[in-house]
């Protein structure tokens, strides 16, 4: 009975995608080539987009693809290929502080778990997931969440100005 509850299509899909994401994430940090690491990161990020689609959050999923895969990862690859991407394995990719990453990852995982559990607890997704339309999202953004939205815009503006200052040598 328990197994029958778990073996719904969404759960199987979640498990398969999550497995791919975990393998991808491990390969990001263990592979010995910068470009391979970036490409594994693409796998992880597209897995996240797929999980959003499973949650019926189409808009977030597509934003994930547009921003992270289409822009951030392309800039990553562009930057590494422009500067130092050799083909084949490189030995000096890891520095001596790599062990520090493990506790940091543990703390982050704990923080996110606590945040999710304390804010949602035992709540369940509705049986018939409803796709949230773009208009509802925009009503929320320019309504109750206007101030955080502005704050984020100013952060981005600051980043743009910072990039211009760094890039201008004259």
């Amino acid at each position: 009975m328990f197994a029958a509850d778990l073996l719904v299509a969404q759960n199987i899909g979640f498990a398969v995608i999550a497995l791919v994401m975990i393998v991808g994430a491990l390969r990001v940090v263990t592979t010995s080539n910068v470009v391979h690491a970036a490409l594994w990161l693409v796998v992880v990020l597209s897995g996240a987009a797929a999980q959003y689609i499973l949650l019926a959050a189409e808009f977030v999923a597509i934003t994930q693809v547009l921003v992270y895969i289409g822009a951030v990862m392309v800039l990553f690859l562009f930057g590494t290929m422009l500067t130092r991407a050799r083909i084949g394995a490189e030995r000096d990719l890891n520095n001596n502080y790599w062990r520090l990453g493990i506790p940091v990852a543990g703390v982050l995982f704990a923080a996110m778990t606590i945040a999710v559990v304390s804010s949602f607890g035992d709540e369940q997704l509705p049986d018939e997931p409803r796709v949230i339309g773009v208009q509802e999202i925009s009503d929320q953004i320019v309504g109750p969440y206007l101030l955080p939205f502005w704050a984020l815009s100013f952060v981005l503006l600051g980043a743009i100005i910072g990039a211009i200052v760094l890039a201008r040598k004259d």
Partner: protein
Amino acid sequence: MMSMLAVEVPYWGQSLLRVLGGIVAVLLPAGTIVYVFLFKMMSFMQSRLGPMEAGPYGSLQLVAEVGKWLQKEDIVPERADARIFKMAPIVVLLSTFLLIAVVPFGPDAWFTDFEVGIFYALAVSSLSVLGILMAGWSSANKYSLLGGLRAAGQLIAYELPMVLAVIGVIIQAGTMNLQQIVIAQNSGSMFGFSGLGNPYVITQFVGFVVFMIAIQAELTQAPFDMPIAESELVSGYMTEYSGFRFLIFFIGEFATAGVFSLIASVLFLGGWGVPFAWFGWTDVDSVANWMNIVGPIIMITKMMLVAFIIMWVRFSYPRFREDQLQRFAWKVLIPVSLANIALTSIFKVVM
């Protein structure tokens, strides 16, 4: 889609039909564009006949070319990163196949009725950059790497005006769903005259021009073919590819041209529809069933028209220089499309 056949098709059957339809909708325009424009129109513009031997008027030339490519050896350079080298063309073609999924061909003839369709199209079209960068890097060839980097820089620069040009259409239609955009254009009217509908090529003319220039650059067609400039870079990121992997790049190039033409005709030329006022239709439910057959034909006609413009420009103009190309995107196209958005929103609010 199935309602016109008056038979109940199970879900897996519908999905299978949609996948097959998608493959046809990608490959058929690609072949047509290559034969009609690349083989024949270019030849006529250069006062020659083009292929004439294979089939009537050389119409089977494409089959011969594909056969030739399939026979060739699939060579991977010795120092290349073989796995990524082999994956790269598939990533490029994949983005094209993902793109066709949101294009509507008739009132019921769609692949997916996606709420945020055009946003999705813009997102997956940027995936091809990934494949091009992979191809350029993994070839272990300086020309390939330079070509890949040029392509990435160009595609990032021209994606922005493309998105901004589309925003004007989204504001005017009030939806991101491509099907709804088609309906909004065909059920609309201009100054009370509904005989033409309201194709956005008229009200959004600036957006249309910016969009056409941007897709010319996204497709890396001349005058924006810096990434594969044969006089400087042999053939850019495709230099090391041979046989059927080159064929995949080639199909990808023209299939993407076809799909982008389809999207342009949906956004600006009214898509599959005819003005609803002609037959007294009021909304999508009252559209007659025969539009599911006529719609795709109208779409293909409009696609050929848009693809004709793309190829016409391609065969007519010499290549931009790299710095001119970047300056044109950032200093001309983006300000123009931003001004277009501002004007469109003012009109939307006032009128």
